[in-house]
């Protein structure tokens, strides 16, 4: 009798509405504050007007303005180009140094591994804003210029962040300094998955370190490179804090470090300089294009790095 009751209880799966009760709180917040605003931003890109009361449908005119208006197209194209350079510098540094550091950290006979690992990760825990302000002082030629030239390192006292030719590269390198911890640890996780026997066999068969690296480690590392590319790609299209801290929202000097993130902020939220009134529709158009680029960019990257499997 008792047994029958239990069996019945177990076989009765809760109804769908019952499970919905558990999902609803998360679903509610997710839709209202993420899914809906994201989709509605795409719609907003087809409208003009500075607030929700005077909004007017204008079709694709915001996009047209972005690409053909003398003032906006100039700024938009330069911000887009800078974002690409910023992304490429981050990619090269994070992948090359990340792999190097990970190989070192996963070398079995290496000492002080945990110590180095802890240090590499420290800047990653900092706010980008704090990193930016700190480097702004460190790279200020007035601050340590005299001391540096006294010890023969005067050439280091340059306006790295202030001169048009070096500002963007400098900002990108500060960003690399901060985020090195994440690619390194992702590569470490991938390399630790290599079965020990595999490396042993290779070394018995007389493979040197370089051969083992190319033949065994690189194939395992490849999907990680893909993930890091996507991660850097998505994050850099949103980069804002680092420019805000080191070069202000205008991407000083003379817009040389203006990225899509800062351009989006000025156009859609704060208002671009001469007008100083935000244009949400135009801002939404910037966001929409970024969104499409992210979608179109992520798929080929995934295909390329996971193609072999």
């Amino acid at each position, binding site marked *: 009798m008792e047994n029958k009751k239990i069996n019945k209880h*177990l076989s009765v799966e809760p109804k769908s509405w019952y499970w919905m009760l558990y999902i609803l709180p998360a679903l509610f917040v997710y839709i209202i504050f993420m899914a809906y605003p*994201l989709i509605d931003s795409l719609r907003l890109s087809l409208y003009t007007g500075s607030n929700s009361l005077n909004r007017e449908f204008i079709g694709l005119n915001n996009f047209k303005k972005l690409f053909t208006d003398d003032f906006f197209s100039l700024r938009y194209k330069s911000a887009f180009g800078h974002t690409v350079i910023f992304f490429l510098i981050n990619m090269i540094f994070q992948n090359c140094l990340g792999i190097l550091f990970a190989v070192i950290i996963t*070398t079995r006979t290496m000492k002080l591994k945990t110590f180095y690992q802890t240090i*590499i990760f*420290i800047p990653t825990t900092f706010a980008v804003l704090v990193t930016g302000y700190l480097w702004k002082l460190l790279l200020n030629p007035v601050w340590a210029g005299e001391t540096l030239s006294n010890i023969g390192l005067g050439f280091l006292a340059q306006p790295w962040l202030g001169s048009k030719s070096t500002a963007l590269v400098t900002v990108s390198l500060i960003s690399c*300094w901060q985020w090195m911890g994440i690619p390194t640890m992702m590569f470490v996780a991938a390399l630790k998955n290599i079965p020990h026997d595999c490396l042993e066999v290779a070394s018995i068969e007389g493979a040197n370190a370089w051969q083992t690296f190319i033949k065994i480690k690189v194939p395992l590392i490849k999907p990680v490179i893909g993930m890091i590319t996507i991660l850097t790609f998505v994050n850099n299209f949103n980069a804002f804090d680092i420019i805000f801290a080191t070069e202000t929202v205008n991407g000083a000097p003379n817009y040389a470090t203006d990225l899509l993130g800062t351009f989006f902020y000025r156009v859609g939220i704060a208002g671009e300089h001469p007008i100083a009134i935000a244009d949400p529709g135009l801002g939404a158009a910037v966001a929409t294009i970024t969104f499409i680029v992210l979608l179109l960019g992520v798929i080929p990257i995934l295909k390329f790095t996971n193609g072999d499997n």
Partner: protein
Amino acid sequence: MSKTKSLKKQNRHVFYHVIMFIWSLIVLFPLYVLVINSLKTRLSIYINPFGIPKTFNFKNYSTIFKDSDFLIYFKNSFIVVILSLLVMTIFSALAAYAFAFWKKRQARLLFFFMIAGMMLPIKIASIRILEIMKFLNLLNTIWSLIPIYVAMGIPIGIFVLTEFIREIPLELSQAAIIDGANRFSIFKMVIVPLIKPALSTVAIYNLVPFWNDLWFPLIFISDEKSKTLLLGVTRLFGQYQTDWSKVLAVLTLSAIPVLFLYLTMSKQFIEGVTAGAVKG
């Protein structure tokens, strides 16, 4: 033969140590400069930029605590981060429990809809979110930040926790049912205690971006009393701009909480942040 090989090995490690030593220097030197100069006076940071000061000057720190709203900023950030983490983890765990046991087609679709947010940067939607907050009358309050952070954390939370709950042997819940427990008490008594490590991974992963977020406070909040720590730092940066030793003291103070957490539990921290970055 074997002698030359071991010698070669040693040499390689020397090379490795040189690389790591140089990078460690590149990481630690700026931090050394940060802390050491925050203990100097306004002008002595120019005369002696890299050295240890003759007398340590703690005045910068006491001025910050006395003359600025630093403690208010700190309190605001603390409340926002703790409440967001709490709500986010509870909502994610409840939903993950349902997704792990509810085996219908619509459940799978809903699951993919909700974890899709992992790939989408929420900043893109900022203009619309700003209008929603204005409509809800939450602008200029710390309460505007919490729903955004909860929404940001939910996709990864559901993803990690659902995987984790699926791995729990079914017999455990069945045994609880035999003991007369209902579904919710199974969640409370069986599931939650077992997924504690996953809950802490999810919390740590979100802790850093919540605490270090500048974007949403910047566009939502202009009222001094509602500013978060980082937004406050931008204000103090402007206010003390002529006095770098004070700026550095502000930066040091704002970096300490997360740095302290990191150094005390670096293993979980690295796992959490990296897992979050990989997003599965």
